[in-house]
């Protein structure tokens, strides 16, 4: 027997030497004790017992027939969410997930407005290489729009390697699906996610940002609504002043409503401009109207809203000093955007002018 090595006082504990019992003579006793343990377990193994506080009984899950209980936080592969009602995807292609992805398996391209070629807050194509994804969950963690979430699906095996490069069409899941697999985690972010989505929908022209498999359906529905709205164009005149009120309602607009409103505005404009100027507006389908028209209508709407707001502000300013008017964020944002755009246009014009003068001199 060796002496204990050192006697050390350690804070909040002792150094203990393990009991070896080398000297005890054994004639198979230890072996039998071990066998007794195994015997007990064998006897109990016919009983199903999934309690954490029990060490006996079997807790095997008969897998293909019986699915394992998956906790809410479980993360396997990333998926993209879209809104059930409107079909709009939550993703705005901000590239945060692409940047943070440790194995760099996320690739995306931003959607562009077909009319102006300017990027819009929507994603054109989104690819995740599932075969190289390490399921770390960073993409879901950084996503400011809660557009990318981790799925619970784990039966992903396939005999085709190419299938593991997953495109947006296969990544899309409705919000209701995610809410069903992770109810509390979705409840935490629901408010802000939907609010941000509504803000983004307003900046998305046409069907951009709508889940691909819903695009056609929603476009068809829009055309139908637009046709309905455009047909009685002179009669729609009394209803033409919705333009100022549009932004306040815009937060709750479904695409159908939006399309209808747009069509109404367009019809009103056409009516104002006179029948001779835009004969196609009545005869042709308004849904196929050139996007420039669409844009002009929207701009007009924004301008009208701004004017209305400005008027309201000037009206309210002298009176309501105690209770400042708090414009809804959406309103505010639209106004600011319009202001920024106007400033930019002015700047561009100035720059062009100065270039001209320089060239002239």
């Amino acid at each position, binding site marked *: 027997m060796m002496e204990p090595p050192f006697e050390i006082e350690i804070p909040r504990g002792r150094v203990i030497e393990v009991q*070896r019992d080398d000297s005890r003579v054994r004639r198979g*006793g230890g072996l039998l004790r071990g066998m007794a343990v195994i015997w007990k377990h064998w006897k109990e193994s016919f009983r199903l017992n999934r309690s954490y506080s029990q060490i006996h009984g079997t807790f095997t899950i008969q897998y293909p027939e019986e699915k394992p209980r998956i906790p809410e936080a479980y993360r396997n592969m990333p998926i993209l969410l879209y809104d059930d009602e409107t079909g709009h995807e939550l993703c705005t292609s901000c590239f945060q997930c692409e940047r943070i992805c440790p194995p760099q398996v996320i690739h995306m391209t931003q959607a562009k407005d077909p009319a102006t070629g300017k990027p819009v807050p929507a994603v054109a194509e989104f690819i995740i290489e599932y075969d190289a994804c390490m399921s770390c969950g960073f993409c879901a963690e950084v996503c400011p729009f809660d557009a990318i979430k981790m799925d619970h699906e784990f039966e992903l095996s396939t005999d085709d390697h190419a299938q593991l490069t997953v495109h947006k069409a296969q990544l899309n899941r409705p919000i209701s699906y995610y809410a069903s697999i992770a109810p509390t985690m979705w409840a935490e972010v629901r408010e802000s996610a939907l609010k941000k989505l509504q803000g983004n929908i307003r900046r998305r022209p046409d069907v951009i940002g709508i889940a691909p498999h819903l695009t056609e359906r929603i476009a068809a529905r829009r055309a139908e609504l637009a046709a309905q709205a455009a047909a009685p164009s002179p009669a729609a005149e009394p209803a033409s002043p919705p333009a100022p009120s549009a932004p306040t309602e815009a937060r709750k607009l479904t695409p159908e409503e939006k399309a209808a409103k747009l069509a109404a505005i367009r019809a009103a404009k056409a009516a104002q401009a006179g029948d001779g100027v835009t004969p196609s507006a009545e005869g042709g389908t308004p849904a196929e109207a050139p996007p420039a028209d669409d844009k002009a209508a929207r701009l007009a709407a924004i301008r009208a809203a701004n004017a209305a707001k400005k008027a309201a502000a000037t009206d309210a300013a002298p009176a309501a000093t105690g209770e400042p008017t708090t414009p809804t964020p959406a309103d505010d944002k639209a106004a600011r955007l319009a202001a920024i755009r106007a400033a930019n246009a002015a700047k561009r014009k100035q720059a062009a002018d100065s270039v001209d003068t320089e060239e002239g001199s």
Partner: protein
Amino acid sequence: MLQTQELQVNIGPQHPSTHGVFRMLVTVDGETVVDLKPVFGYLHRNHEQIAEANTYLQNMPYTDRLDYFNSMANNHAYAMAVERLAGIEVPERAEYIRVLMVELTRILNHASAVGFMINDMGAWQTPLAFGMREREKILDLFEMASGARLMCNYFRFGGVARDLPPEFIPNLRELLVALPAYIDELERLLRDNEILLQRAVGIGILPREVALSYGVTGPVLRGSGIPYDVRKAEPYSVYDRFDFDIPIGKVGDVYDRFLVRIEEMRQSKRIIEQVLEQLPDAKGGHINPKARQNVRPPVGDAYARIESPKGELGFYLVSDGSGKPYRYKVRAPSFINLTPLADMCRGYKVADIVVILGSIDIVMGEVDR
């Protein structure tokens, strides 16, 4: 007189007893080991170089893949290193959650390490299943909290990724009821087993001085009789608030390491109980809300070490002020504990090599990086 000759034998790299891809070039004289040369690098995957190309946060999931049994412990060491580098405070509650996770990891690791060691002795599968059973339950808990069983990726700079879910604590309390019985049973199953005694007592002795000179840490060092534990020697996190003992061995053989691991599981269970007592009073949330995850630490370097289940795990980071580490170095306990393998094996039989290797408890993912 019989003409004898030394023979060189390769064990591995593809060998079921080598815990991964690891080759031992053994010189044998009959059945007796004359010399042994460990050859590793078969699982090298450029971990440190990849880390220097990644941002600090992106490295967190890669640390999971070092010692894939103890991803929580690896996360902890790395998070501590970055927090030291960037000067990030960790709330009290987060510290308790961290300690809780790392101690659960220790139980999990030791249970399976004992199981694998017995498996290497030839007791195929049955004791291993005993070692793995409670591990499953602990992995369930990890899954609840972090979302993954093995590659937890749970720690963040300044805390942990998300707070414990409501079902975690009740399940953990249930598990704590089972743990003492489980550890006792595992000990009763194996401790006095005559076959195990034959294979373990007096085998693979690592003398105290040799262990010290190689820089061995963890249960292997404590098995050799040196009461060195980073949790006591340099208390990090909130380890100075817990009562726990340091078990040490007498001889430094395979049997001592086995007993030290069993005892450490009991001590870890004690720590978890104390964590559960103190957790409700802990201040702060699960993460420091001011901590930025895309850190850009000031120019400098930092070293953080923890007592990982396998030994002293350290991360050394050098920052050049950018968002990526300029140098990233892992002090991997498995690697350093493996280096005295030749000294431990010399003079024993070929069959003992496998047992000795099993008693060191290595994970090749950490050895080769």
